């Protein structure tokens, strides 16, 4: 994905003008004037302790992948100051790092609607009485973000920090580490960031899209937000669609059916073999009827993670695509934690062996064993996400696996992933 493609989609391809679908309502490359015309000016003074309950009622969840309840995160940071005599003032960081190669919705959002993100950051900062505000952004969006911050008087205390373009740079503790020391590697998780993060202060790290939703909820209220989506997954989310045609960013309703989302992106469903939902840490899905929701009971629900939908054409081999991704993930390890540093390359070697012609049936058992071995062990969730991807591949491509072990896989491989 080149930068041009990433920030390229013009706003007419972004479904963002009707009803509550309005993250991009201010149009392409919106400046402050267009932003205020579309959304009205921000009245920060109206944000008080009551906003926390509005945020709670909205049911907004994080759009960076973990889908944790946003108000809980905000509330934990507000309380993270503890009972010290001179409590440290919290820090809020807008996380725009987008190391996931298949994701470009955050870059697109920052390019076209930076002021909505800035509004959200100012609101969150006020809600927790923060004294330090940061926007941590991918290099592609850096100039736009800096220009947007410079354009506003109320954004003077926001510092813009560039994120390195590594897979792991957006992990919350890596964000804090990067801003504090310039090293974008995850930290040990014994202490929560909401209690002691940047400079030992309570630290709130929210994805930029999450903050854009916060800005809209502050303007229109929780009822407005909940008008889209469903009870268990209210509001809208941005998705990055890739794998067929040019990359597209769409704003879709919560709990949407996968096939509806793909259809509205103009994808010919008959050519779809599988969809990688949630990116490199996500899952392969074949049932296009399933719904995209981070929570909720029942079958046929898939967590959209950070909103990545990558299409694997029916003619392509899913095992080989997964092997290539796994190889990337193994190399993307921060190499700090043993199980990840040694386990992921071991998994990658086994899956590559299977994908590229080794027909030893014991390899499958070995891959399953290694996948179990790395899960839940490490300072961040890189091993967990990798294990999730591999497990879903073993489940979804079981037929292909048989074909590989028999030496009869006839699918093509592609280098575009």
């Amino acid at each position, binding site marked *: 994905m080149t930068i041009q493609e990433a920030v390229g989609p013009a706003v007419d391809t972004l479904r963002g003008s009707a009803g509550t679908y309005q993250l991009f309502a201010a149009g392409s490359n919106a400046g402050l004037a267009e932003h205020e015309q579309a959304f009205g000016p921000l009245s920060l003074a109206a944000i008080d302790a009551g906003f926390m309950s509005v945020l709670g009622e909205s049911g907004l969840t994080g759009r960076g992948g973990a889908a944790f309840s946003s108000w809980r995160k905000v509330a934990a940071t507000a309380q993270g100051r503890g009972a010290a005599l001179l409590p440290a003032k919290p820090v809020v960081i807008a996380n725009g790092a987008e190391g996931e190669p298949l994701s470009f919705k955050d870059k697109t959002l920052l390019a076209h609607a930076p002021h909505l993100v800035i509004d959200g950051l100012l609101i969150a900062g006020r809600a927790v009485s923060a004294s330090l505000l940061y926007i941590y952004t991918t290099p592609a969006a850096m100039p736009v973000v800096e220009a947007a911050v410079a354009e506003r008087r109320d954004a003077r205390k926001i510092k813009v920090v560039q994120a390195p373009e590594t897979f792991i740079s957006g992990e919350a503790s890596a964000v804090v580490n990067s801003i504090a020391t310039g090293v974008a590697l995850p930290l040990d998780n014994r202490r929560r960031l909401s209690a002691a993060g940047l400079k030992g202060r309570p630290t709130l790290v929210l994805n930029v899209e999450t903050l854009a939703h916060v800005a809209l909820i502050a303007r229109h209220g929780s009822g407005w937000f909940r008008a889209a989506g469903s009870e268990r997954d209210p509001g809208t989310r941005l998705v990055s669609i890739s794998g067929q045609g040019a990359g597209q960013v769409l704003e879709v309703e919560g709990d949407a059916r996968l096939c509806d989302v793909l259809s509205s992106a103009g994808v010919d469903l008959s050519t779809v073999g599988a969809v990688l939902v949630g990116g490199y840490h996500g899952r392969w899905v074949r049932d296009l009827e399933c719904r995209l929701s981070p929570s909720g009971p029942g079958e046929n629900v898939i967590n959209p993670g950070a909103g990545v939908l990558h299409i694997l054409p029916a003619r392509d081999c899913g095992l080989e695509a997964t092997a290539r991704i796994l190889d990337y993930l193994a190399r993307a390890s921060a190499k700090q934690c043993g199980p990840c540093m*040694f386990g992921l390359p*071991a998994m990658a070697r086994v899956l590559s*062996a299977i994908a590229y012609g080794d027909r030893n049936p014991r390899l499958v058992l*070995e891959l399953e064993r290694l996948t179990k071995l790395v899960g839940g062990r490490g300072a961040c969730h890189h091993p967990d996400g990798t294990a999730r991807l591999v497990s879903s591949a073993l489940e979804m491509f079981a037929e292909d696996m048989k074909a590989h072990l028999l030496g009869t896989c006839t699918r093509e491989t592609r280098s575009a992933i």
Partner: protein
Amino acid sequence: MDNALWAFGRMSGVVSLVLFSVAVILGILNRSGRPLFAIPRFSMTLLHRNVSLLATVFLVFHIVALMLDSYAKLNVIDVFVPFLGGFKPFWQGLGTVAFDLVLAVVATGLLRHRLGQRSFRAIHWLSYAMWPIALGHAIGNGTDGTSKWFVVLAAGSLAAVGAAVAWRLSANFLETAKARQGGLS
């Protein structure tokens, strides 16, 4: 009394040197992560610590005996500040340097949990400098330094510690080295 002090001072120095050799070898064994025979790793760690502390105790005996001895008449300044002594100042100074290093290594070892891993490790590495300096002091300064039995003892220690260091630098030193070099298991 003086003869006894003199003899005790010399012998405690030799005992201390031998114990430090064992301590260094145990430290290297520990680092490899391998249990020795049936001794578990945590016991090896404790053994390394206790032998080191014992060696330090004998080193203190060595120094105190020679301070009290009317012939050696080691003074407090010479114990801590190297190369100022009246008799063979260079060789005695090596002993003082080794003692200072031992103090630093032992103190940081005991305070490891407070200092943090990084400072502890940096200072602990000085052990590799301490040991040959102490050996040099023993050979150059010791009354028995060039007598046959001591030369044999020193050569044996040097061979043992040298072999341990060579092993330490080899590719398969770590217990887990093979597994961590990769390859399908």
